């Protein structure tokens, strides 16, 4: 298992903490017991020495008490005087590998009595007591582990429950998880999950509606093609047949245009991940305007470009972006302007520097867009007027491309007359 497990981690932490606490208490017990035993043994040593001295003082003959077997833990000696360096009373002494606790006292006859006990005795006595304290731990530790493990399972059950809820979901189920009854600690997680679900649901709904709208929008050009094909088949008059066949072609063109627009939108969604490169917007504008010049002339519309010198050229005026999409943006704006401008009118595109970025204004002398629907014309498939062949996607595409480049797009009345002004500002990116 490589994935970190919260369960295991808590088990280790809690098990370790309990063990440490127990060991600490054993150590404390050991030290405390030892201090206690030291006190008791010291008292015993002193008492034994006093008793011995009392016995010595009362006996007439001076007994020659020889030191007891040094291999025994207790040793008692009578000395004429203390060895050099040993103070009267309590002291510690090392003899070879043996360590002693010693009490020395002088009797009235001037003789010294020394009572000593091996340090090891005291240590082992204290150790035994401490070990006794530790003993239950060996038994309790496995039991505790099991108990902690169970408690963790029980305590972490809400997490498992939520995990089960999420993992059992179908890919289409984006209903929020229940927040009621969720422990306070996991509620932020559940809330965040629910917010994510809501966002995904919104995106899915938008995509679904868009796909449905796109399919529906294709139905009308298909109806145009089908109806006019039937009309052509049923026509007896050659003129009538010709007109119907022309309309079949127009219907096919419209379907083609719609598919192109839909693909452009799909590309915009994909391009958000793609890389940018320096784009010469002025050159793009010239090229797109060039492509539409013939149509403008045929419609009797003057198409005019006004490119400021400081917005021209690939150097300083270049902005970082998606050249293909920026071309689509220009084409849609110019196409839209031409579509709504009557014969004898004018379409002007002005490109200038705007701070660090560029500002493009496409202006026509058409009827403009009434202010009450201006806010909606960027909605996908919204048409401000009768469907004259457009899919209602042009301005939504412009909006999406501008958005992708971090720019701003607004519509206004043409100053000093009827007509529409589309204003796009693009940062250098």
């Amino acid at each position: 298992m490589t994935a970190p497990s919260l369960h295991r981690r808590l088990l280790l932490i809690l098990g370790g903490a309990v063990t440490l606490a127990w060991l600490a208490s054993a150590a404390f017990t050991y030290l405390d017991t030892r201090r206690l035993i030291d006190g008791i043994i010291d008292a015993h040593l002193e008492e034994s020495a006093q008793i011995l001295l009392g016995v010595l003082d009362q006996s007439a003959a001076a007994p020659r008490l020889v030191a007891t077997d040094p291999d025994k833990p207790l040793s008692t000696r009578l000395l004429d005087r203390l060895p050099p360096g040993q103070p009267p009373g309590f002291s510690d002494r090392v003899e070879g590998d043996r360590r002693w606790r010693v009490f020395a006292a002088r009797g009235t006859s001037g003789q010294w009595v020394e009572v000593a006990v091996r340090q090891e005795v005291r240590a082992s006595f204290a150790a035994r007591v401490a070990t006794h304290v530790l003993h239950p731990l060996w038994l309790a530790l496995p039991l505790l582990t099991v108990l902690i493990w169970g408690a963790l399972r029980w305590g972490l059950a809400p997490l498992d429950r939520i995990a089960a809820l999420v993992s059992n979901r179908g890919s289409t189920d984006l209903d929020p998880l229940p927040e009621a009854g969720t422990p306070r600690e996991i509620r932020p997680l559940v809330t965040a999950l629910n917010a994510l679900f809501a966002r995904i649901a919104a995106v899915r709904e938008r995509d679904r509606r868009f796909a449905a709208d796109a399919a529906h929008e294709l139905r009308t050009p298909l109806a145009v093609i089908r109806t006019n094909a039937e009309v052509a088949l049923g026509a007896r008059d050659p003129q009538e047949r010709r007109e119907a066949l022309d309309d079949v072609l127009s219907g096919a063109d419209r379907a083609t245009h719609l598919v192109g627009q839909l693909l452009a939108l799909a590309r915009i969604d994909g391009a958000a991940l793609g890389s940018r490169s320096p784009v010469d917007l002025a050159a793009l504008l010239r090229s797109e305007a060039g492509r539409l010049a013939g149509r403008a002339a045929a419609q009797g519309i003057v198409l005019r470009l006004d490119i400021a010198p400081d917005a021209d050229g690939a150097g300083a005026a270049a902005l970082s972006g998606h050249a293909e999409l920026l071309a689509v943006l220009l084409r849609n704006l110019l196409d839209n302007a031409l579509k709504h401008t009557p014969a004898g009118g004018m379409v002007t595109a002005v490109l200038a520097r705007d701070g660090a970025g560029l500002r493009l204004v496409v202006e026509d002398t058409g009827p403009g867009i009434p202010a009450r629907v201006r806010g909606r014309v960027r909605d996908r498939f919204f048409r401000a007027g009768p469907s004259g062949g457009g899919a209602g996607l042009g301005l939504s595409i412009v909006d999406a491309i501008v958005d992708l480049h971090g720019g701003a797009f607004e519509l206004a009345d043409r100053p000093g007359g009827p007509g529409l002004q589309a204003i796009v500002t693009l940062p250098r990116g």
Partner: protein
Amino acid sequence: MRLLLVEDDRLLGRGLRTGLSQRGFAVDWTETAEDAEAALETTAYDAVVLDLGLPGMDGLTLLRRRRAARDATPILVLTARDTVDDRVAGLDAGGDDYLVKPFALAELQARLRALVRRRAGEAAPTLRSGRIELDPAARTVRLDGAPVALSGREFSVLHDLMLHAGRIVSRGQLEDAVYGWGDEVGSNAIEVHVHNLRRKLGTDAVQTVRGSGYLVPAAPKAPVAP
């Protein structure tokens, strides 16, 4: 039969107008619900073909308004939306029938004929008067079982008279039924058509009611069981 076509899409509207005219419908075409409402206020139509997606007032609103104004003209709804909810909404708002784009022109025509027939209270797809039998779908007329060749206008005049068999139909009503907006109507056009019908079907086929109009005798009703 005179139809009002409400369709904002120019190419589709033009195709539908021509396609329906080819089959003898007199078609008036408006591009907005507002114009359609004005036309419905002043002219009696046999049926309306209504697209729901219109600029300005939408088709469903027009439907509701007409039904609220107690206008019972049969309305066939055309739309690009084909979910059950959309269809239910269209029918509940007062639509009599529903067709999803793209559709076959022949089906649209058949549905319109059925709507008009039901409106006239006829269940049979063919109309009868005396020796004459008229089949609106096939656009054929038989006299004693033998086919009679009629021009499109003549057929339309006879069709309208037979839809109102036993009742007087004025010349103006016949003009409305046979000619759409923009069709040129000669001052004696209806007289000419009636004259031709009499020549082809016999003089009593169409009776003239002086000062009022024309009349085709009703077919004798089947004897009612006692």
